[in-house]
């Protein structure tokens, strides 16, 4: 384990607690003290049944929400102390989101969707277009960059979303059930893209899923139950034909 500690930690969570409706009758503690460290270049699956607290954990990891107590450092930034604007910047710069239902903006071309985080980062039009086109090429969507989301299939939409998640070269990719809305064949394609990003480009990926099968192909599997981590184990190394 010593050699792992020498690597750069991207996510450092210590005793994270999340409680909803504090002080009210329906006060509810969802996470009961999560300790989690994810290092640069890891591909981690967080797996759990629905109600296990994985959505809450994903919101905290994704800096969409703050823990009630505990410490969370993301790539050196103390999220607990960040203002809403600083949280926006952290999401923009350090996190690449991939959602179950793609969350592309309608009536906007694939390329414009991919450019969006870079737009909010203040990049120039030319720089955005160049990078967005390169990323769309990489996920095999180069020819469809001027298509709007309603003209794309589920798998194509998710590939656009992956391109978007990469545009600001974030510290981690945070994928929330990325294959949940796809058939098994397209799911396979999407998972292959993640494996490729991990293996070829050394991306740090956190995959949140309820599927044991999907988690099994990730190198590290963290299992969540009732707001606690019940296991943290090595997974299989996926065999991918590129």
């Amino acid at each position, binding site marked *: 384990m010593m050699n792992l500690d020498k690597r750069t930690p991207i996510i450092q969570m210590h005793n994270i607690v999340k409680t909803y409706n504090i002080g009210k009758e329906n006060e509810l503690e969802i996470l009961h003290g999560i300790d989690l460290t994810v290092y640069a270049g890891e591909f981690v699956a967080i797996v759990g049944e629905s109600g296990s607290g994985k959505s809450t954990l994903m*919101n905290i990891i994704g800096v*969409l929400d703050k823990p009630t107590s505990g410490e969370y450092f993301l790539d050196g930034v103390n999220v607990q102390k960040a203002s809403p604007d600083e949280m926006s910047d952290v999401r*923009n710069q350090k996190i690449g989101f991939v959602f179950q239902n793609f969350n592309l*903006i*309608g009536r906007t071309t694939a390329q414009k969707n991919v450019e*969006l985080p870079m737009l*909010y980062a203040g990049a120039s039009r030319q720089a955005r277009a160049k990078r967005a086109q390169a990323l769309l090429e990489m996920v095999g969507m180069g020819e469809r960059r001027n298509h709007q989301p309603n003209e794309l299939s589920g798998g194509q939409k998710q590939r656009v979303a992956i391109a978007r998640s990469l545009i600001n070269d974030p510290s981690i990719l945070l994928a929330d059930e990325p294959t949940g809305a796809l058939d098994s064949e397209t799911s396979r394609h999407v998972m292959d893209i993640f494996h490729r990003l991990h293996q070829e480009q050394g991306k740090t990926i956190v995959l949140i899923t309820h599927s044991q099968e999907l988690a099994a192909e990730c190198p590290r599997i963290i299992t969540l139950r009732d707001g606690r981590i019940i296991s943290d184990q090595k997974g299989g190394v996926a065999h991918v034909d590129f």
Partner: protein
Amino acid sequence: MSIFENIHLAFTSLRANKLRSLLTMLGIIIGIGSVIAITTVGDSLSGSITKEMDGFGARNVTLTVTQKDDPFANGTAFDLSSDDFNAILDNFEYKEPSSDDFITDEMLNEYSQKFKDQLETVAVSNDLGSISATNGRYKAGGSLIGCNPGKAAIDKLQMLSGRFITDKDNQDLRAIAVVSDLFVQQYFGGKLTAEQALGQSFETDLSGTPLKFYIAGVYQYKEADGSVPTSKKQDTNVYIPIASGNQLLQKSNGYQTVTLQSKSDVDNQVFMDRTRSFFNSFYARNPNFTVSVSSMEDMMKSVTKMTQSVQLGISAIAGISLLVGGIGVMNIMMVSVTERTREIGIRMALGAKSRVILFQFIVEAMIICMIGGLIGVGLGVGLGSLGATLMHYPAKPSMVSALVAVLFSMGIGVFFGYYPAKRAARLDPIEALRYE
């Protein structure tokens, strides 16, 4: 994120909802359109009235023998509610002024003496009716006007040849006339110049009485800058000595109306007040009549005031339409924010700060209103110009009010877009992302 990106984004979103955007703009279009149409018509109207009155001579002061209890002359008619107004009209009995009531030459002489350092011109005239003169196959027409020498200045006549009516013409009751070059051209079939027409005579009649005049002067005919184009432009004035005219028609001497012109360095208002008190002293013991003193300047002011208050009234109604339009914009923006909750969530998750979202929606509302304002200005200028043209006034759309209108509608956008935009900016990204 630059302002241009925001504007581009707003246009993208408006294009995505064309019909809804147009319906939202409708209130603004109608409001701005009606304000611009009204101001265009109003400006054209008061512009040409002012021009016309300047042509008449705005500083001309008119003395009129009026009944002392005439509610329109003494102003009481304008201060009362309609019931009182009708009562006053019912009580008012019109009386014909007799020769004893007219302004006399003695009064005018005394007046001219007393005010000689302030007075430029005193003009008296009687409109005797229209005449036509036939010379073989040539024919000329005109209005026969009996007048004194002062009339030339009041009517701004440019003499081409000969002279105008003199005091001596009046004393001797001469049968001379001053006609226009147009009259000469028509009567002599273009064969005589203004110079050659002098000393020539022409014959005509006035209600059966045969008349013969010798041409003593020819003035240059000017087309009136009148607002309403007259169908008979060939009718010009034929000036004759007023005393001759009165004698011909067996009219008594004395004048019901007199036109004065003060020297240009005299304060017209003070001049009018003094003139009023001068003539009032003559009429103090007259039981029925007095002399009212008015000027075109006064009338112009009241006409301008009237058009302005009509404009203001209609603008107030248009303002209500703008308010309703603004609320419409707010309503649609609220719907839009709700509809696009998920989009807002996505944008926030991808790193859009609250103020970026706020700005996006404000810019969107502002652009809806700006486009509405522009369409409204176009529509208003079009309708206003059409209205002015139909009323035979030269259309005079105001660039300033167009600019103010567009800026004002953008202001409405910001004002009514702020609250919905604030709602959008305050959304919790987690909730917004979960919104179906």
